[in-house]
């Protein structure tokens, strides 16, 4: 016998013009996706608790004073949600402009597509708009930290901290506009608590954290996702049985990820599983 959770009530939510039935406790984003709406997200992680940092998923909830972040606001029975209202679209456009003017979004999946869709113009703040541009930190052979691409979504902090890895090698230094992602006491990575599991790389939405292989190949101009295959297999090290997705280009493994819905890994791996494939 397997103890079951108490059954969850289903509630009806109105998304734009259609009614969607979702379990109680689901977020507006879950409801939007159930209705097939394509709401953009950056800081939302399917294996992490919502951080509400990026505001790119805001939607209009009828009767609410402010726009609501779809990724974390719980859907309520009878709620009427507008995903594409003028106000929500305008808000997303400005968010994309602010991000695009200050951060390098070149490796963020779909960023260019959204910029076009919402008519965002990141260049409108002029050439001397503040940016977070800085040299990439290449200090080990496994992964690279390129903070000119960081949108401060805190996903890596959560993945390294209490939500998954419990290593606490990644924190936030500074306050307000000076906030940056950093190791403890801003120590060099090799002196930090980091165990190189790469679970921060797994959740990073913009490529600020990336495999060194990917970083080097992009620098050479040889990184080509259209020529990559993805194959899910099982790790060859210990007996835990973690699932890996191998990204292969030209018969070489160029990157390793882990399926987020897998019952063994929930998207996490250790240093051997994620980086220890050099021997093949």
């Amino acid at each position: 016998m397997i103890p079951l959770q108490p059954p969850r009530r289903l509630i009806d939510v109105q998304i734009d013009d259609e009614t969607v039935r979702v379990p109680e406790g689901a977020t507006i984003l879950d409801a939007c996706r159930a209705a097939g709406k394509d709401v953009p997200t950056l800081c939302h992680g399917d294996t992490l608790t919502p951080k509400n940092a990026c505001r790119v998923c805001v939607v209009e909830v009828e009767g609410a004073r402010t726009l609501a972040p779809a990724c974390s606001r719980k859907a309520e029975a009878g709620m009427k949600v507008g995903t594409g209202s003028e106000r929500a679209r305008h808000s997303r456009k400005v968010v994309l402009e602010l991000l695009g003017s200050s951060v390098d979004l070149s490796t963020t999946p779909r960023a260019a597509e959204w910029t076009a869709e919402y008519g965002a113009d990141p260049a409108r703040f002029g050439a001397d708009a503040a940016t977070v541009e800085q040299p990439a930190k290449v200090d080990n052979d496994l992964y690279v930290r390129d903070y000119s691409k960081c949108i401060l979504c805190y996903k890596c902090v959560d993945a390294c901290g209490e939500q998954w890895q419990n290593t606490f090698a990644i924190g936030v230094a500074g306050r307000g506009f000076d906030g940056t992602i950093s190791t403890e006491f801003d120590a060099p990575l090799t002196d930090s608590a980091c165990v190189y599991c790469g679970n921060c790389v797994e959740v990073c939405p913009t490529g600020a954290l990336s495999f060194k292989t990917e970083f080097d190949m992009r620098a050479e101009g040889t990184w080509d996702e259209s020529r990559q295959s993805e194959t899910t297999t099982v790790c060859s090290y210990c007996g835990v049985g973690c699932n890996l997705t191998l990204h292969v280009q030209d018969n070489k493994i160029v990157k390793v990820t882990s399926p987020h819905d897998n019952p063994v890994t929930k998207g996490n791996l250790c240093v051997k599983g994620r980086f220890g494939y050099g021997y093949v």
Partner: protein
Amino acid sequence: MSYDRLTRPLVRENGALREATWAEALDRAAEGFRRNVAEHGPDCFAMLSCARSTNEMNYVGQKFTRVVIGTNNVDSCNRTCHAPSVAGLSAVFGSGGGTSSYQEVEDTDVIVMWGSAARNAHPIFFQHVLKGIRNGARMFAVDPRRTGTAQWADLWLGLNVGTDIPLAHAVAREIIHAGLHNEAFIERATVGFAAFKECVEPWTLTAAEQVTGVPAAAIRELAHAYARADRAQLCWTLGITEHHNATDNVRALINLALLTGHVGRYGSGLSPLRGQNNVQGGGDMGAIPNRLPGFQDILDPDLRARFESAWGAPIQPRYGLNLTQMLEGMAEGEVTTCYIVGENPVQSEADSLACAKRLAMLDHLVVQDIFLTRTAQMADVVLPASAAWCEAEGTFTNSERRVQRVRKALEPPGEARDDIWILCELARRLGHDWAYDGAEEVWDELRSLSPQHRGMSYRRLTELQGIQWPCPSEDALEPPYLHGRLWESDPERRGAPAPFAVLEHSPPVDLLDEEYPLRLTTGRRLDSYNTGVQSSGFASPLRRGETVELCPEDAQRLGVAAGEDVRITSRRGSVVAPVFIDPALRPGLVFMTFHFPDDVDVNSLTIEATCPIAGTAEFKAAAVRVEKLVKAG
């Protein structure tokens, strides 16, 4: 050092290995087997099957041994790690798998990590433990070292190496004397309680404290927490099993579960965490000397008859040799030919020098691997194989008995070929024409013979992201835990009762004395793996090579500083390694890994005293002395 992949078959000529064609290498390999079997009979052949390779390869490998050669001498490296767990669990419950799923460790009340540095050795399992802790479970760590696991524990019980049985007995005695044992469960589902009660009686908290070094209050705390918990998980690893009396150690832990009824229910169970990706699967597939595929007993005539009719060949009605006995057989000239698939016993066996000597006595040694390992360098024929986990199709079975699909992502390099193809080619040369059209066909043959795998079609394994055995039916799933039958009220359905074991404390064989005053124990580090063959392939910033880890007090007493080279000597060998100071150790305890055998051959120090039941060596307890190197001049 890192290894290059093998890309061409090699054969030995005039004492050296040279490249050869596949046809020549396979002919040479098969001819040698034929010659030896013709001369000495089938029992001169031994096969080491690979715990890294797929279930399908292990199935074909054991079939090759049993059908083509006609012996049961097939084993794998589980002998060096969890064979005692399998032996202990199957003696009590009739099945050698861990009883629980990872999810249950998240949903339990007490977690006991016994001799398991899971934080570093099984990090992703430990994430489930951490979830459990965050959900309110109390965690107890029993380990001579204050490991990363212990740092997350509510209570760390730092016991002396090799005193697990006294500790377990003291816990049991305390539970009984406090009246916290589950009388109803003991009455209905177990046997041998009276004798067990008698055997733990001398182990008072005080007596145990003297032997184990664990404070009486801590033992009492563990006993009460474990017994009072609604649900409790007991997990262990090589700290329990790499001892000369390993099976007894495992039985001592099982006794605790039987005493409290912490088995056969959701969230209550016994989990040996397996150290190789498919060591569970290798045993399940029958790549062990005493079991047929599906973990079915080879001594059962009805079962044998089923396999004999399916395979069209007689099966020997007796157990084959296990790895330890194979090595003994080589020394005595009874085992003259050996087929090793993907194992590296020359570097992974205790007392490795003796192991190399024995392999050198063979008339014919065939090694199939992806690297030219130390073992492969001794072979007469070397066959380049593919890496199972990314160059082949198949399945692996993990610690929670979950069978999962492995898929081909890469083409093997050069002329390296698939394991199953190689095995079938050798079988064909020895008169057995097996035409397997891929791994799925092998798997379906296994499913037709193994009831506990019957319901696991590849399609279902893909859809459900793996299925835990037992899975007899195509359209249902069993609960994630084993032995729920013990809680049935109907004696018919309850089945055989689980026996308590009467055990005696047996201290480590390698005694400490004035000449060898320190206790060396071995283990793993996070970013390296076993003999380092695989993990040397990536540049880990954490890797610092082999060191000998001492606690600050011992380092001060010996007058050595961090980074200084020292000589470590046991009764069997001697190595030199730099010092690393680790406050997690206690005085008198020294720690080394076996990840860098090419630089520091730690297994030349370890003792080959083995567990008589399971054949596992006592890697965890050697007596050594550590000396400053005296500079010449």
